[in-house]
């Protein structure tokens, strides 16, 4: 049952696999905190093997939506279905057990534990081993421990983590930690992976690597839902984009549709003052180049 990515999976430039059947259904989900309504009657679908991006202004409700889907918040209204089953309001562990894995907007690694242990966390539910095996050091114990270690290494290789895997994860540079967190989530072998701003704090080069990683993940057949503010990345990697504002969906479509959608420019990419528009165009334009692969330095 050797899990983990088939080693040697490398980036290819051809587009990701075509979207499959519906995997995640969010139906008019609402989350309110006292006065604030973070998510307001939100509905959208996520398909098998699809890369779906959720974008929107700060405070639009993206993370809250994630927290509802993964069970960290209880939606005050609406339903969430995953793989046909209603998972509304179930505790995070159960939802994760069904094959939903996530990363957090603010890294939530087990700082004091080794990189390997962090990744092993993802495999916890799959390991066939109990306390008595551990106490008596049964063959079963040794086997599962070994599998765990091997698999952890494979996932770390997969995300291209190079740091020392035997020491506390908190001593790694930020970018490395981001990778480890993704490896941990992948080790869960999820049907769907939710990533909350994985590119935050990465520089250009690292974003390219992330892009490649995302493609390889979706090639594994894992559906990816991505929250990101980096338009370059979003436009390039996603097959579909959902745009939120004030907890409501204001647009849903292909990158190209979204990029040219006035409502989105208005609310997100920006259009108030010249400065912002320039900025927005920068972004839009930059994404174009990257998508159509034009190679041309610009200042």
């Amino acid at each position, binding site marked *: 049952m050797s899990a983990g990515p088939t080693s040697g999976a490398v980036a290819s430039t051809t587009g990701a696999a075509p979207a499959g059947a519906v995997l995640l259904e969010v139906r008019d989900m609402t989350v309110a905190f006292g006065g604030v309504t973070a998510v307001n009657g939100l509905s959208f679908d996520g398909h098998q093997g699809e890369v779906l991006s959720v974008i929107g202004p700060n405070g639009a409700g993206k993370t809250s939506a994630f927290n509802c889907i993964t069970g*960290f918040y209880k939606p005050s209204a609406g339903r969430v279905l995953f793989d046909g089953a209603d998972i509304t309001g179930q505790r995070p562990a159960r939802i994760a057990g069904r094959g939903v894995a996530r990363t*957090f907007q603010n890294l*939530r690694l087990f700082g004091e534990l080794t990189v390997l242990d962090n990744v092993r966390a993802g495999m916890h539910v799959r390991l066939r081993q109990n306390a008595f095996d551990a106490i008596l050091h049964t063959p079963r114990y040794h086997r599962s421990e070994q599998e765990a270690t091997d698999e952890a290494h494979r996932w770390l290789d997969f995300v291209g983590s190079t740091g020392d895997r035997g020491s506390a994860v908190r001593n790694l540079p930020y970018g490395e930690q981001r990778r480890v967190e993704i490896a941990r989530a992948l080790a869960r072998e999820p049907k769907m992976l939710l990533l909350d701003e994985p590119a935050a704090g990465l520089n250009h080069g690292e974003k390219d690597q992330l892009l490649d990683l995302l493609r390889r993940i979706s090639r594994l057949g894992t559906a990816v839902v991505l929250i990101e503010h980096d338009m370059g990345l979003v436009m390039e990697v996603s097959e579909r984009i959902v745009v939120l504002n004030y907890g409501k969906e204001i647009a849903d479509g292909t990158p190209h549709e979204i990029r040219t959608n006035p409502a989105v420019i208005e609310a997100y990419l920006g259009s108030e003052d010249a400065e912002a528009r320039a900025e927005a165009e920068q972004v839009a334009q930059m994404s174009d180049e990257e998508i159509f692969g034009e190679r041309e330095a610009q200042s």
Partner: protein
Amino acid sequence: MDYFLQLVLNGLFVGSFYGLVALGYSMVYGIIKLLNFAHGDVYMVGAFGGYTLLTFGAGALGGGSLVALVVILVVAMVMTGTLGLVLERIAYRPLRGAPRLSVLITAVGASFALEYGIAVAYGPNPRVYPVGFGNASVTILGARLTVAQLLMMAVAVGLMIALDQLVRRTRTGRAMRAISQDPKACLLMGINVDNVISRTFFIGSALAGAAGVMAGAYYGKVDFLMGFIIGLKAFTAAVIGGIGNLRGAVLGAIVLGLLESFGTAFLGAQWRDVFAFAFLILFLTVRPTGLLGERVTERV
């Protein structure tokens, strides 16, 4: 006499007395999350300080008059406050950044050191305060309460209000709360973290000292282990009230006092603490952050 009312009054008095100690405990606890097991012993040292001053210094202040008592109260507060500073400096500060529980060890260590330091200095026999409050008492609807008790309740409530204002309104108070959440960020706000923490210890310990002197004068007997139980009660009260919340601390203390009073009445004194703790456990299971501890939806 009105039995029920008497029980309430007993509870209120004992509670507000616990409150005096719990206040200081809660302050320190609130700011550095330290289970300060030495707090009760600072209270004990305060009581002995007062005793020493009264026996040897009282002459200068015109005998064991109540005036003398007040003067001595202040002196004792300064003494214990300073003791708090010293404790923080040698036993707690060096462990900033160490696992939180490490400080628990030094706290217990300090507690032992203080208790048996006094035991060595004064001998294990209890000492008797040369002055005390009289038995003068008022009768409220058939239940009696001595003037001294009224006095101490007033002091407890007064102090609670004062400190609460300090923590909520003032700049220092905000700093205290900020430190309890992220000392490092506080440095970047220009807050002299050490200094604020020291001040907190001073106030907290001074309060304990005051309570100690009052206990000595009111109950008449002081001994080197008198701080242990009251320390636990203060901790309990602080937690019921909601950690780091001063109003909560006093409220919690009063609840505890009432619980004990009624527990004794209904189940007999030997079941008192069982009653109190059992209630506490049930209470916390339905109100997991204490009486006034704010609940915040987690943010992930």
